């Protein structure tokens, strides 16, 4: 009897999980479906079966080269993630292992920068970029993306580092490890799952960032977000083309997420069960 109940519960739970997953995935699925429709079909209302035309893809490719934008997206998301880790690992390490009375306040203060709407600082940032010649440069945008994701990276790493027993680090110190040796040879290997999932999440966040990447670039540094934005038209039908552009833009990150699923989930639940 008990087994029957468990099985039923399990079935219900699985069904519920599938429904939620489908709900979350549906907008993406519908974008992909729409990308295989003609413009007329796309605007005609809800329809899950496309006519299967590749017209939009060829038009999108003919109109603006995908590869240049793709390359920028890769450089920006990976570059900003590396920069963020370089800054965040020492920061999280010091807060996790040598906390002071104010550590919590510092963490909250960092997070509070995420609570401000980005547009509020558009002009100051734009002026700084203008004066330093960083407008439309990859390096400038890497720094910008690093800065906006830094609070999240620090927070995640801090949580992971806290799970590592301080005694192990003490033991390393007893054996004569220097500060850097301690971070590089003891702490980092133990925190690899945490660092890896932070890295993956940060790459996804940087890949999808659409406010600064559109506003601080023109041509040289423009990533896929700018590519998508170029297909919306005030006069003329564009839903199918826009969907094709979106599909092309999200496909790489979606595939990457798929392959690194295990790592991502393991990292996110790291330390959840004691």
């Amino acid at each position, binding site marked *: 009897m008990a087994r029957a109940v468990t099985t039923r519960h399990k079935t219900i739970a699985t069904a519920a999980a599938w429904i939620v997953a489908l709900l979350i995935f549906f907008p993406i699925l519908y974008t992909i479906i729409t990308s295989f429709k003609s413009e007329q079909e796309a605007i005609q209302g809800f329809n899950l079966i496309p006519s299967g035309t590749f017209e939009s893809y060829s038009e999108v490719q003919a109109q603006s080269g995908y590869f240049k934008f793709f390359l920028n997206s890769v450089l920006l998301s990976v570059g900003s993630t590396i920069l963020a880790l370089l800054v965040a690992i020492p920061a999280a390490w010091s807060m996790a292992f040598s906390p002071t009375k104010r550590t919590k306040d510092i963490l909250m203060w960092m997070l509070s920068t995420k609570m401000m709407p980005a547009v509020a600082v558009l002009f100051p940032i*734009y002026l700084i970029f203008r004066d330093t010649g960083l407008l*439309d440069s990859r*390096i400038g945008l890497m720094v910008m993306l690093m800065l906006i994701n830094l609070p999240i990276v620090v927070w995640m790493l801090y949580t992971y580092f806290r799970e590592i027993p301080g005694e192990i680090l003490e033991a390393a110190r007893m054996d004569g490890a220097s500060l850097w040796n301690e971070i590089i040879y003891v702490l980092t290997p133990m925190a690899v799952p945490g660092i890896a999932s932070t890295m993956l999440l940060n790459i996804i966040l940087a890949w999808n960032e659409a406010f600064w990447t559109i506003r601080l670039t023109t041509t*040289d540094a423009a990533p896929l977000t700018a590519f998508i934005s*170029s297909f919306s038209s005030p006069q003329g039908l564009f839903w199918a083309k826009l969907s094709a552009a979106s599909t092309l833009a999200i496909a790489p990150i979606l595939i990457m997420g798929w392959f690194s699923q295990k790592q991502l989930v393991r990292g996110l639940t790291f330390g959840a069960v004691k």
Partner: protein
Amino acid sequence: MKLRTLTLGLLSASALAFAAHAESITIATVNNGDMVRMQKLTDDFTKANPDIQLNWVTLEENVLRERVTTDIATKGGQYDVMTIGTYEVPIWAKQSWLLPLDKLGADYDVKDIIPAIAGGLSVDGKLYAAPFYGESSFVMYRKDLMEKAGLKMPDAPTWDFIKQAADKMTDRANGVNGVCLRGKAGWGENMAFLTAMSNSFGARWFDENWKPQFDQPEWKKTLQFYVDLMKADGPEGASSNGFNENLALFQQGKCGMWIDATVAASFVSDPKNSTVADKVGYALAPDNGLGKRGNWLWAWSLAIPAGTKKADAAEKFVSWATSKHYAELVASKEGWANVPPGTRSSLYANPEYQKAAPFAKMTLESINAADPTHPTVKPVPYVGVQFVAIPEFQGLGTTVGQLFSAALAGQSSVDDALKQAQDAATATMTEGGYIK
């Protein structure tokens, strides 16, 4: 630490060096058919000017507007040529944000630009942007449904006739709506239509002292007529329909009449996408016999921001893209019907164009029937037919657009919407220092 600083420095220096090399100009534009076509034809320009390289930035209209405004206000210098409309040109020229176009070349023939369009792009007699394509609005109607209704569309209909025809054409059982009009909120969406319509009802946004006029009977008549017409003969959910939604409805044969941009004519008459391509007739936008018609005037134009360091190259490009030569180039490659409309008188005098574009005559007459410097029956202190060329209009126009869209959706009454519009406009104008 030192090493990292050094690397960063080197990287940014190389990025700068990359940006500074070669005389390349950056052109910001929107994704409209004519603009996309121009990008494909630029070989013709770069062959004649091998020292100039062209970079394109295509953005969604609102993002483009925000991007170029940020850049031009901070003198960021990211763009050398920008695509802007008749709304921005007078405001930005007055701010000295744009360079006057006085070196367009000897064979450019500025006088050939349609006077109504040139007027909207000039300040104190100087041209600040060259029109790439111009448009007005007019009535597109289904000749077959009009015949079935036993009516004949005059070349210059009145609003009463439109109402009468819409009532007769509406056949909701068969999915036919007598008339499709914009309802989606926005200064460039429903307010473009309603402001132009209000001109023909004798209404105006402001009196000579910038006092808002939504409490006047003319606005009440305009909005009441619009809401009643749409309730009786408009499509379902009209309050979320903009240009593209109505275009799709018309192409699918679901509208008897559609009053919108003249540029739509080339879409609805295109047999590849339109099921009613061979059944469309055109007429001037309606009036009420007060001397003004309900049509607007807009021109997507190329302008050069004052912050550019490559003004000469930029002006060469602007001259090429808006020249008679460019029109001929498009005609030779893609046919006369695809030449950007509404900018040059010579195009409309061309018999080949008249033959290829059956809507040519009506388009030109519509453009000529709009006067941005005297848009209304009663005098006004502003320029602009379907907008008021002041910086505050984008925000205010959209707020009022939302109120009127809500009235169309039945969420508020016409009187409430007008009262709130009056309050919002009064607050904005007081804050802006127009009302003392």
